[in-house]
């Protein structure tokens, strides 16, 4: 347990201390690999609780996703970074510190500790955004810092409200999640409702739910692709886990329908907003930011729909991390080769760089929810969950919004991959280009392959893990989420 | 009964005799800050006597309004002074709801002064009148809200009763609110009496006058009345302020504190500069917010 939390931090300090050289990048990869190994070994042998942190199904699932994401990103970063723009060691140190903070977030059993770790991760991510030292990057960093800090402050207010709700009971009140969930029906519902709404707004800002998504296009567009991949895959999960902890407590108190209603509303709004704004996107990474808004909306919507939807949400979370990583890695590769982000200027990638083109198309298919990628199943499951419980309006709006996103992304990305390439392409002249290209594209390929593989055949272990995470969200009312139409 | 009659006589004596003394105190304090001796203690009285014995010159553009202005002002303020407890815990006269009458009498006096200023037909006085009305428009709601807060806290509608023993009993319980009311009333007093930081009573520069410019064209007895009325306003509002700020003190202390309050005004005048004209609404708005907050606290205090 300690190893998982502290090793990234230790590697971060070493990175800060060492002078530059290729072996510093290797150190980054090694650090992430050690963390991944520790997480992988915790599945068969769960470690004991320590300092308020404990392994629970939800946190364990997310931690695994995050660990894999960081490992892939570290490999990508080795290939991506060439010149020494911002201090490379600051970047690597902050990345590793971010990994530590995210570990604490996933494993924390105490709401206060959760909050402290989320704030720490926001602060660790800020230098990662300000990588290119341009004025627009600076603006994006400032916007990110302020909006995130305020959102997290509101989430703290929500946490306090929930703790106040527990004060009326006879037991000694605490911020411990297990205690609060156990107190359940004795919690004051008014304070719980206020607390949940505040946390929804606060953690929703962190995740990028609409209408709190305004910072996402700027920040994802201006920060370097490794950062964007980490944020889209990792920080959204951290906001999501904060929200889910609140949902756990409120469900235990019987407010599941109240929470679910609000989550459905925010989720639908996010998907709809994404559908509208994708049409007007000009930059590739801003387009990806809006798809991130859409997927975060789907996550929230899934959990809001109830137990079947919760399983779909977990499945969606897993595939979202894989897809976003792959897409942002491809975006990074395109930035390196094309020197531009505007989709109008990029054409015919598949002719010049076949692998990148294939991965671009694959990533597009994955994020649109085409089979055999896993998102197909999760999105279908959500539609079925909505329709199956009689909420046809929700299902209808969902399908319409997804269709808009489909058309928007397809029409934007297809010409990028398959088209006549422009003549004005800059041939990158950098040392060890072949290795770097491999390092940039291999993680993307691995992520997509994993997504497709899991879509075709999902091992029982994975299903069980997803199931346990979903079940921990709701009290055992409807034990669905196995076979049937919810693959 | 005898005590009541003595208090009434004392109040009347104070109303007649004390205001010029307050002005003298302010002058002395300002002079002391300037390292001078300043005018004598009796100087305001001598000035009033001199002005009273002079004759006045009236411009041909003025009408009876010009001559009535200072008279109405003094009469209104004198009547208001009868309703405010100065020494002791009851005013000379009182009835439920007289706090509104006091506020309106102050406004009546201001209106008379402004009309007299406008009657001269000079743009100079008009400018001063416009500024005076603007500041008054923001100071009067503050006064009303502060008095309303006191009324809610004590449950009394008669100024004498409101500022008397009931307030003394309720005062410790409404602690933060009472200080807020006192602060708001202090700012209102500075505004109504045309003191720094709202207006400079010693300036004669065109750009900076507010109150002075309105009485610029008066002479002789009318000027004496205007000057005395301004000092009487200081006594009036100062008494209300002292009763709010220290309700638990015995009555001689409240009388003695009046010159001390004048000294505080003198200190404020000597240490601060006049605010720029467009910042004055901010000051008055702050006073209104202070009074409003006090009213909120007092209302909540009843429910808590």
């Amino acid at each position, binding site marked *: 347990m300690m190893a998982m939390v502290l090793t990234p931090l230790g590697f971060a300090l070493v990175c800060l201390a060492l002078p530059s050289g290729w072996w510093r990048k290797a150190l980054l990869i090694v650090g992430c690999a050690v963390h991944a190994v520790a997480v992988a070994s915790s599945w068969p042998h769960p470690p004991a609780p320590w300092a308020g942190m404990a392994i629970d199904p939800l946190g364990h699932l997310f931690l695994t996703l995050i660990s894999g994401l960081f490992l892939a990103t570290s490999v990508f970063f080795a290939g991506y970074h060439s010149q020494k723009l911002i201090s490379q060691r600051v970047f690597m140190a902050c990345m590793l510190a971010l990994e530590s903070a995210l570990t604490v977030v996933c494993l924390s059993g105490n709401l206060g*500790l959760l909050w402290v770790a989320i704030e720490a991760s926001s602060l660790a991510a800020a230098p990662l955004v300000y990588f290119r030292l341009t004025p627009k990057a600076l603006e994006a960093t400032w916007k990110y810092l302020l909006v995130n800090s305020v959102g997290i*402050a509101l989430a*703290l207010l929500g946490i306090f409200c929930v703790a106040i709700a527990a004060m009326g009971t006879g037991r000694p009140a605490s*911020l411990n999640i297990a205690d609060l969930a156990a107190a359940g029906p004795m919690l004051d519902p008014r304070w719980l409702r206020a607390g949940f709404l505040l946390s929804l707004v606060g953690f929703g800002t962190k995740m990028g739910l609409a209408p709190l998504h*305004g910072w996402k296009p700027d920040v994802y567009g201006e920060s370097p692709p490794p950062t964007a991949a980490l944020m889209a895959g990792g920080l959204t999960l951290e906001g999501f886990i904060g929200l889910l902890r609140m949902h756990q407590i409120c469900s235990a108190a019987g407010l599941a329908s109240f929470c679910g209603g609000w989550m459905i509303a925010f989720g639908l709004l996010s998907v709809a907003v994404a559908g509208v704004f994708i049409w007007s996107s000009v*930059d590739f990474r801003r387009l990806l930011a809006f798809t991130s808004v859409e997927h975060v909306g789907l996550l929230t919507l899934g959990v809001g729909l109830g137990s079947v939807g919760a399983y779909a949400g977990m499945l969606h979370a897993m595939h979202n991390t894989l897809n976003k990583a792959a897409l942002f890695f491809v975006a990074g590769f395109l930035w390196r080769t094309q020197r531009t982000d505007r989709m109008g200027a990029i054409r015919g990638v598949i002719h010049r760089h076949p692998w990148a083109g294939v991965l671009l198309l694959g990533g597009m298919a994955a994020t649109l929810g085409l089979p055999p990628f896993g998102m197909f199943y999760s999105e279908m499951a959500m539609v079925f969950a909505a329709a199956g419980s009689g909420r046809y309006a929700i299902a209808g709006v969902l399908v319409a919004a997804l269709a808009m996103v489909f058309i928007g992304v397809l029409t934007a990305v297809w010409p990028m991959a398959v088209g006549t390439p422009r003549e004005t392409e800059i041939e990158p002249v950098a040392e060890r280009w072949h290795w770097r290209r491999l390092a940039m594209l291999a993680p993307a390929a691995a992520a997509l392959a994993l997504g497709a593989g899991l879509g075709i055949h999902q091992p029982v272990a994975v299903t069980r893990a997803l199931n346990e995470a979903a079940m921990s969200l709701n009290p055992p009312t409807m034990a669905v989420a196995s076979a049937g139409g919810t693959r | 009964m005898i005590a009541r009659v003595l208090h009434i006589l004392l109040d009347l004596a104070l109303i007649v005799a004390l205001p010029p003394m307050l002005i003298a105190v302010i002058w002395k304090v300002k002079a002391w800050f300037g390292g001078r001796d300043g005018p004598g203690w009796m100087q305001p009285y001598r000035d009033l006597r001199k002005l009273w014995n002079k004759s006045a010159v009236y411009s041909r553009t003025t009408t009876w309004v010009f001559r009535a202005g200072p008279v109405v002002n003094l009469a209104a303020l004198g009547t208001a002074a009868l309703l405010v407890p100065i020494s002791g815990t009851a005013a000379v006269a009182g009835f439920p709801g007289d706090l509104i009458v006091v506020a309106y009498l102050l406004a009546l006096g201001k209106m008379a002064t402004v009309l007299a200023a406008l009657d001269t037909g000079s743009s100079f006085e008009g400018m001063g009148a416009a500024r005076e009305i603007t500041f008054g428009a923001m100071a009067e709601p503050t006064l009303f809200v502060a008095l309303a807060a006191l009324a809610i806290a004590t449950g009394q509608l008669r100024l004498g009763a409101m500022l008397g023993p009931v307030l003394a009993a309720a005062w410790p319980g409404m*602690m*933060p609110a009472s200080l807020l009311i006192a602060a708001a009333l202090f700012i209102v007093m500075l505004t109504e009496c045309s003191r720094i930081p709202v207006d400079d009573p010693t300036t004669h520069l065109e750009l900076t006058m507010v109150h002075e410019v309105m009485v610029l064209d008066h002479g002789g007895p009318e000027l004496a009345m205007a000057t005395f009325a301004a000092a009487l306003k200081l006594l009036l509002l100062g008494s209300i302020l002292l009763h709010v700020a220290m309700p638990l003190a015995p009555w001689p202390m409240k009388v003695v504190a009046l010159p001390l309050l004048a000294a505080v005004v003198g200190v404020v005048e000597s240490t601060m500069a006049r605010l720029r004209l467009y910042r004055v609404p*901010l000051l008055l708005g702050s006073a209104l917010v202070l009074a409003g*907050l006090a009213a909120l606290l007092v209302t909540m205090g009843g429910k808590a």
Partner: protein
Amino acid sequence: MDLQTAIDGALVMVLLLDLGLLTLGRLATAIKALALQCLVLAPLPLAAEAMHGSVGGHGWLILGATIGLKVFLIPWVLLRAIRTGEIHREIEPLVGFTASLAIGAGLLAVAFAVGGGMRAPGLSISPLLAPAGLGTVAIGLLIMISRVKAITQVVGYLVVENGVYIFGLLLVGRMPALVEMGILLDLFVAVFIMAIVVHHIRRTFDHIDTHLLGGNGEASS
């Protein structure tokens, strides 16, 4: 004056400082007003503990840490950012000082209306806590939204944090010391990083007017 009145008085002072921050034009004065607000708030948990029982040792430790960080260190960081940047006055904000004061007063009234109805179960040290907390958060958000200079936005953020802190006083004695220290540390690091970013902004743009940043990007959402 008993403890209850002192606590009430402190909360009223905090609200007055909130409204004052809305009207202050000079940046250094605003930072000092913020430091004063933190100073007034710092002894409140100790007072709450004293009201409900005995005062533990770690209460004094947290008091010391709070005062050290929020009253001295953070304002020092911000003042240094101003001094090196040579920016001293806030320009007329989007809403205007007097209008901000009026809106702030309105927000306070709403906070009193909403917060007065929120009764915390169990003992709470003052009926003013929930309204003061909500009001401070609202005014902090107003400062952040309507101000132009980046440093004032950081001040607004700290006011929001103060408001959340007041709200947390309703939980008196229930928060473990680790969490409190963690929150304090986070706050300090956040302000530190913000100050660094402000420094970069000034170096890049020669001013810290945030509404002039990034005027040449395409329309984002």
